[in-house]
């Protein structure tokens, strides 16, 4: 009886996968391993996303018997909102600065870690990774203490030197600096370790051969290191870009989006707008879907550009 069942299962698998036993032998295990992620993603991501997309086309009211279809009105409302558009420009500025700064810093620091032969490398790696474990809220509190106008670490020193303290709620430049700094601090350790992993994976033979051919450090960097690191750059850029465009906790805690919306990000705007008593919550949902689409599109562009480059190298 048991063997009959097994035979039927094998026949079923053979029907689906052809007669290649290797393909279906492990199929059940594969499905079983895939199932938890598939179920969780479906329940907590795919279904809510589909519901949100549907709701964004309605003037949704939870107790209404019939929901009013409004087409693209919610999208048009949010697109016509200047603050929302400005928040995107801010996010793009943050994204450019953070991606460039983080790439340069982490790539450089990864070289330092690779070159370190003193035995402190492990300790250093652990230390630089610690900020990544801290939440954005906690990091913001640390920086708020430092910039406390009444005598935080930075302003306390400035006051004792009879210099003007930094007012992050009144100076756009400083506000932006103190949104970017905690973000860089938090992500630096993780990105440096990713770069470090990439660097140590490049075969030494390449460099030895290049040295024999008379290549200098610049040639090695451009012709060997950078092309070999393309996938690591891709991972880092996509992560940083997504993080910067979806930034919320740090501007929320540090500046509240001010002064004069100079640190307002799209997610922070949507958070503030969600309880606009005169607007349907569907407008905010439409805004959130727009944010998702824009982040997805930008990441696709990055994938396309970086992959293309790699293809050329290949």
């Amino acid at each position, binding site marked *: 009886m048991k063997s009959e069942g097994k035979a039927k299962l094998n026949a079923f698998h053979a029907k689906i996968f052809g007669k290649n036993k290797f393909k279906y032998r492990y199929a059940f295990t594969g499905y079983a391993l895939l199932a938890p992620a598939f179920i969780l993603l479906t329940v907590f991501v795919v279904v809510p996303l589909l519901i949100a997309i549907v709701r964004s086309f309605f003037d949704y009211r939870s*107790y209404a018997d019939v929901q009013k279809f409004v087409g693209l009105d919610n999208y048009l409302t949010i697109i016509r909102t200047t603050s929302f558009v400005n928040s995107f420009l801010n996010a793009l500025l943050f994204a450019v600065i953070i991606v460039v700064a983080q790439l340069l810093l982490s790539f450089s620091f990864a070289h330092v870690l690779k070159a370190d032969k003193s035995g402190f490398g492990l300790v250093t790696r652990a230390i630089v990774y610690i900020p990544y474990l801290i939440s954005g809220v906690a990091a913001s509190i640390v920086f708020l203490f430092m910039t406390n106008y009444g005598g935080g670490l930075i302003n306390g020193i400035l006051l004792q030197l009879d210099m003007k303290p930094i007012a992050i*709620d009144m100076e756009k430049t400083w506000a932006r600096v103190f949104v970017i700094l905690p973000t860089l601090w938090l992500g630096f350790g993780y990105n440096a370790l990713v770069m470090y992993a990439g660097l140590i994976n490049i075969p030494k033979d390449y460099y030895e051969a290049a040295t024999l051919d008379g290549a200098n450090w610049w040639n090695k960097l451009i012709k060997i290191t950078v092309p070999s690191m393309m996938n690591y750059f891709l991972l880092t850029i996509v992560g940083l870009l997504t993080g910067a465009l979806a930034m919320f906790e740090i501007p929320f805690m540090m500046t509240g989006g001010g002064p004069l919306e100079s640190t307002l990000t799209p997610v922070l705007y949507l958070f503030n707008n969600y309880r606009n008593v005169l607007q349907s919550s569907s407008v905010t949902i439409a805004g959130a879907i727009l944010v998702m689409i824009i982040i997805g599109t930008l990441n696709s562009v990055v994938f396309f550009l970086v992959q293309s480059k790699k293809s050329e190298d290949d």
Partner: protein
Amino acid sequence: MKNKKKLLALCLAATCTMGAFASCGDKGDGPEAGATVVSVWLRDFEDWSNNVMKSIMDDFNKDKTDGLHIDYRFITEDAFGDALAAAQDSGNAPDIYQVSYMNLYSEVRNETVLPLNNLLPEASFADLTDSAKSLVTYSGNYYGYPQLMEPSAVMYYRKDLLTAAGVDYSKAEEWSFDDLYAACAKLKTTMKKKNGKYPCLMYDFGQAGWATQGLQANLTGGNVCLTEDWSEIVVNSKAYKDLAAFFVEMYTNEYVPETWTTGYNDQIIDLCDGKAAIVYTGSWGIAEIMETYGADMAKDIGVATIPTLNGGANKGTTATNGGWSLVIDAKSKNPTAAAKIIEYLAAGEDTTAPERYFAAAHYSKSMPRKRMQEKLAQTDISNVCPAEWLTTVLDITDKAIPEAIFTYDINLQTIGLVQGITIDALDGTSMEDSWNSRIGDVITEIEKIMANNNLAGNNPRLAKTGAEK
């Protein structure tokens, strides 16, 4: 191995038992057989507030003969909106919940709350003050019953610090902007920036969008950004120039810090800690003083109406009324029973329960009912809070207006104008030049927001009833 399993089982059992006890702790006594259970969701506020509300509801549940039982839950402010939306979407909404006056219209617009006109006795509404009625009335219907009101702007000052700087505070209640400037100029000699001290903490720009609405109404003669019917923008006016000039004077003279870590809601802490001699915050500051710092500190603190352009004994509106109302969910299975609970908590003939709450709040919240206010006037409250504080807060509440419910972006644009002019002034630009360079863009933006949200002439607070149409 066996022992490990036993230990694990014991840990699990202990955790489950503790969890069960923890959840019971918030629910109070169980209902009597056959009782109608009314679920009530309240905000998780300060400990004293939660404790007194729990005690009031537990006392109700002790009566096992009334056929009613309150099943209450306290939910943090951050989680409340999401929890309620999820409960309403899944058909598990509470019968009664707390809504701020600011957000009540959202509930009315979405038809998630019932009008209370036919559920509560007419006498309950007749007993409300006019300002309380205006907070919960839309199209002639009462959609919530006011539980408490909190004027958003009150001036608190440290008598000892003012005396040390040679400031006469005996007429602080009548102070104008000029009086405040003069007091701050003297205070600058004792409250030194280098020591992290400032003469004053007033509105911070993060909160000024709502916190200054009372002052805006005072300067404009009753309007906030728009005319009452939302047909016209009033920002391009002398009133708003006066508002900007007030901020410029306070900031450029360093009477206030350019930025401050403590937010507007908690500035009373800095007053009590001696970091500022004068602070603006809502009436809730009284509860903070009495609960955290006690009567000894209260002796050194004075409470007054905020300074206005011209000052004087009768300043008119200087604050908005914030606070909370109790509403009945539109899909409540027991609206009549829910109404009985609202009567017990806030609206009934017997005012014992709400009076207990206000006493526990050290009268930092204003009573929305005339009868309770009259009774309070005959009561000696000196052991709860200084009587003159209460007189001041009640006066401010009576003259306060409801918070504006138009799209908040309009407030942000308006206060952004004031902030921009203040920043320009700190950089050395004259106020006139800054005003002229900014006002056009701000008006254009507000017009855009109004068009985008179809606001012009559509203030729902002025919407007519079916009969009036």
